[in-house]
């Protein structure tokens, strides 16, 4: 017993030790990341300067930076950002608020799953963009049809990951909870929900990524504003550096929104390793 106590003490202090080390390793990792980005930009600039075949057609990083600088001085640019962010947030939130409970219910209640799953499997393979013509006809405003297509993009991934998460929960946890006196609603709230969370967040993260690709395409097809529309407009106007600056903005926006999901995940699941 005493031995075990000592072992525990050693383990705890070892854990503290790694905590410190992770911080140092973390800053080295950030430096590596920055070095990677700088290296990538450098190679690109060099490639353009050296007239490497395909690269030479692409605006060089410095040109793009100048275009980006110009954009930063236009009110329109910020409006495009806001409009895109609004569409994505609305679509993503609707997909999550409807999709997560639906997935939980499908996972928990077999009869409900048998009823709904086939419908799902028929609708799921239809690419979200194939819905664009119908939804333009169907929804009163262009805006609502764009949001609808975004919802569809994230929805199926969110539902299916939630469902899989519930199904993958080890029976042991449910039995342990019941054995400790939990009633079915408690099992749902305290075992099924947290047990499925890692999978739910995987669904949300992937769903967030899909959301942006759908948004950009939808804006190009049907929009009058937003980052996707801005990029397309630059193409039509032949302003190539702006095209790349637009792409860059979309990348930043996608990255930032995934980071938000990851942040929420880390806060909601303190027991898992951050991913």
């Amino acid at each position: 017993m005493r031995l075990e106590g000592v072992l525990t003490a050693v383990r705890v202090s070892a854990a503290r030790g790694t905590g410190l080390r992770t911080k140092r390793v973390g800053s080295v990792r950030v430096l590596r990341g920055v070095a990677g980005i700088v290296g990538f930009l450098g190679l690109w600039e060099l490639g353009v300067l050296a007239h490497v075949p395909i690269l030479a057609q692409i605006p060089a990083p410095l040109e793009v930076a100048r275009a980006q600088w110009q954009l930063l001085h236009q009110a329109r640019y910020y409006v495009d950002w806001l409009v895109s962010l609004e569409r994505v947030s609305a679509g993503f939130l609707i997909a999550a608020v409807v999709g997560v409970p639906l997935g939980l219910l499908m996972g928990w209640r077999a009869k409900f799953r048998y009823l709904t799953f086939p419908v799902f499997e028929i609708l799921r393979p239809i690419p979200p963009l194939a819905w664009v013509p119908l939804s333009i006809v169907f929804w009163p405003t262009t805006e609502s049809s764009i949001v609808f297509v975004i919802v569809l993009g994230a929805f199926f991934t969110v539902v299916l990951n939630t469902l899989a998460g519930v199904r993958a929960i080890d029976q042991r946890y449910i039995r342990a909870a019941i054995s400790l006196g939990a009633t079915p609603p408690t099992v749902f709230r305290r075992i099924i929900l947290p047990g499925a969370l890692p999978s739910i967040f995987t669904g949300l993260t992937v769903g967030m990524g899909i959301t942006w690709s759908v948004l950009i395409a939808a804006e190009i097809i049907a929009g009058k504003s937003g980052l996707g529309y801005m990029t397309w407009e630059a193409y039509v106007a032949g302003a190539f550096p702006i095209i790349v600056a637009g792409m860059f903005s979309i990348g930043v926006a996608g990255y930032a929104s995934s980071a938000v999901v990851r942040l929420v995940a880390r806060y909601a699941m303190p027991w898992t390793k951050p991913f």
Partner: protein
Amino acid sequence: MAVLLEAPARNAGTGAISLRGVRKVYDSSAGAVEAIADWTLEIAPGEFLAVVGPSGCGKTTLLNAIAGFDPVTAGEIALDGTTIACAGYLAPPGADRVVVFQNGALFPWKSVVDNIAYGPIVQRRMSREQALRAAHALLERVGLADVARAFPLKLSSGVQRRVEMLRALINDPKALLLDEPFRALDAISKSAMHEELLRLYESTKKTIFFITHDLDEAILLADRVVVSATRPARVKRVLHIDLPRPRSPLMTASREFLDLRAQLTGVVHEEAEKALRRGERELA
């Protein structure tokens, strides 16, 4: 580490488990599997009973029936005179006979202290604050206060198992049902766990139904060791262990222990051979 559990234990004299002609047949699409043939045994209140038997002989099946997870096909199981399982009836699982699982089942999403406080909270037997205070007190008593806020998967399996036993004991159950709780542990942590379980048992005198493959463990811990026949399970032999209490892992070297060990090995060996031969037949 003096007294481990001073929590008010249930009155002595509760926790009698009667198994009368228990039979279990699994009906699956692959055909019927008779897991338990006929199991009859009276477990006294406060007794430490160990069950050993070949792998797949039906030990977990029996535990699941006592726990209320799986119905029996025939026979009857009673806890303190109240029927908890018979053909066509199964009392729902409850905290009067808490299970500690074969592979451990601490909730990974709850900290150690929240895991322990879980039972009293969901049973609404204590307020959240009371339950957490009781959980902290338990951890303090067994010298695990350091890990109260840690998440289970960050701990060694030995510590996880200790926490899991506390999570069961805080409910002051009539009986503890342990399904090979120390199977995955290395020899050193296992010996430490034996010492701790002996102390917990000897200070609380809960009825313990303990499944194991480890003959030394069975003899060291139990008042009686039941050898199960190979599937379908039935009571093959009951061995009384008269080693004095309090026991300690040092006793495994004593003359009496070695005698018991030799006896038990003989009986178990017979069943193991049968299981092996049957396995060969099934494969042929």
